[in-house]
């Protein structure tokens, strides 16, 4: 091969070579991407397809499996147990997600400002809870919530106060919100921080020369620059809220009266499927929830992108 790189740039290669090249690109590209796509089809696409298929049938004690059309969907959309769970996760989404993302953003801005003592310690220590499994986080907080032997009980004894039981029906959703916030505040902080790191510093210089103060730079330069990261974190948080399962499922053993089997749509699906053997109806509830999630995530994405333009 004696082809000079400059020659290749100035003169486009002749057609046959280009065709050979694009054939090779196709072959090699699929060769590299093929394994991912194959496994993805097996564990994502096939189950989604199968799930939709399942929703069209119903198993009856007498007569076996029969085709019921959209009956399962009608049942799900008019099922008060489904909507109870849905209203819980919707409330959770409306309260917990803004609090969590707000704290994450403020911490990311504080760390990025370079004005903290021990910057790298802050960054890694606040991130650490992300490495803690939801099971351990829920057990841990569950123990601490205890009014008899837990930290709440300790504080009540030590200070002679009577803090309310965090695992009571009226407080349990907030208590779960606290666990989820604790788990993911550092993860989101890191996503925001990573995005802030790659904002060109010259933009700050330019804004400072124009007379912008620090808050002005945050509002007019930094936040717009990391809009993509904000939108992605919001979408992941919406998906996470609607999928809420691990934390309530584990706390259920400590607070069986406060956390019912339909506390979240996910818990409801789980109990329908694995305790009630109602696979078809469980698949329907899951699909309905999936469609609602996808619509809201998509709307947020559109809104996030429109502001940009």
């Amino acid at each position, binding site marked *: 091969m004696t082809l000079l790189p400059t020659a290749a740039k100035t003169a486009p290669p002749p057609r046959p070579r280009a065709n050979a090249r694009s054939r090779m690109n196709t072959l090699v590209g699929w060769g590299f991407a093929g394994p991912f796509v194959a496994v993805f089809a097996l564990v994502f696409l096939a189950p989604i397809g199968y799930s939709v298929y399942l929703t069209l049938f119903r198993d009856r004690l007498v007569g076996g499996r029969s085709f019921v059309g959209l009956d399962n969907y009608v049942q799900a959309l008019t099922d008060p147990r489904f909507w109870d769970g849905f209203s819980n996760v919707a409330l959770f989404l409306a309260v917990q997600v803004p609090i969590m993302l707000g704290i994450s953003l403020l911490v990311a801005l504080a760390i990025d400002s370079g004005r903290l003592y021990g910057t790298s310690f802050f960054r890694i220590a606040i991130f650490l809870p992300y490495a803690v499994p939801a099971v351990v986080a829920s057990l841990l907080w569950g123990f601490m919530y205890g009014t008899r032997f837990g930290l709440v009980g300790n504080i009540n004894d030590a200070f002679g106060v009577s803090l309310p039981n965090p695992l009571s029906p009226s407080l349990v959703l907030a208590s779960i919100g606290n666990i989820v916030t604790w788990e993911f505040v550092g993860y989101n902080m890191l996503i925001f921080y990573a995005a802030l790191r*790659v904002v060109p510093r010259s933009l700050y210089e330019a804004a400072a020369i124009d007379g912008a103060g620090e808050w002005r730079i945050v509002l007019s330069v930094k936040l717009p620059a990391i809009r993509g990261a904000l939108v992605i974190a919001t979408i992941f948080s919406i998906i996470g809220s609607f999928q809420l399962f691990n934390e309530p499922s584990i706390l259920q*053993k400590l607070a069986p009266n406060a956390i019912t089997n339909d506390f979240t749509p996910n818990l409801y699906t789980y109990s329908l499927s694995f305790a009630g053997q109602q696979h078809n109806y469980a698949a329907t509830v899951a699909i309905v929830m999936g469609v609602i999630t996808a619509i809201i995530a998509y709307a947020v994405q559109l809104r996030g992108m429109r502001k940009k333009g």
Partner: protein
Amino acid sequence: MTATATTDHVRRAAATSPAAAPPQRTSRRRPSTPLNPRRSVPLTLVTGLVLVYTLLPLGWLVINSTKNQRDLVTSFGLWFGEDVNFWDNVSRTLTYDDGVFVRWLLNTLFYVLAGAGGATVLAVLGGYALAKYDFPGRKAVFAVVIGAVAIPGTALAVPTFLMFSGMGLTNTPWAVIIPSLISPFGLYLMWVFASEAVPDELLEAARIDGSGELRTFFRIALPLLMPGTITVLLFSMVATWNNYFLPLIMIKDPDWYPLTLGLNAWNAQAQTAGGEAVFDLIITGSLLTIAPIVVIFLLLQRYWQSGLSAGSVKE
């Protein structure tokens, strides 16, 4: 954090160089600007509140892993009990019920090795292909994968369970490993990372030198992809190590439990009438469960943080 410090230094030097700012302006700069920040005690204290919030439960865990059952219920949660039982707790956690905890630990390691290792390989190969080869269907692959992220895990759980059950895979390690092999976040990160980290000119030069595509990938692209690869590996490891829902539905036999299911089983046992309450073992077991992953994150933070930063370039 020498690497970060150096980059900051270089960035600041570049930003304050005469080319970027007229020299006459430099003398009139305010005491603290985004480019020339002064460390602030009030800001450190306020951010410190979040630090206390995140570290408090971990401190509680460490303190209470030193207590026996009696001290657990009688002593204050944020201080040590009368006796220090840490090593005794560890050895009882590891030997309780014929050493079932060790079995769960080995299972978890196996799931992580196969699942997260495989997920990383697939994501690196796929991300590299999406970034560096213009092939028909490329955009479709990306759109479908990103779209699928919005589908809740439970929408997939029931049909995946039924499908795997039909294939005879439930209650085997495969049921946990195979779904762990796909990391859409990993694919996305590697795609963005490869676009930035591997220059087309370098690949072209290798081809001109007669290097085959596989050889080019392993000898030239892979070393450049290392920070991104480590980031994907770490985040897949956490996902697999911490996985709860998938094994919960797939695995019935406690011999195949990962640590998360095992700890949950101990907790359930304590709540059932007549079951032995083993809160001390749950607490020490929890500490042993999070320790390895925390250590790995601390040791490798230089690599995964730079990988994450590079990955957010295009967001």
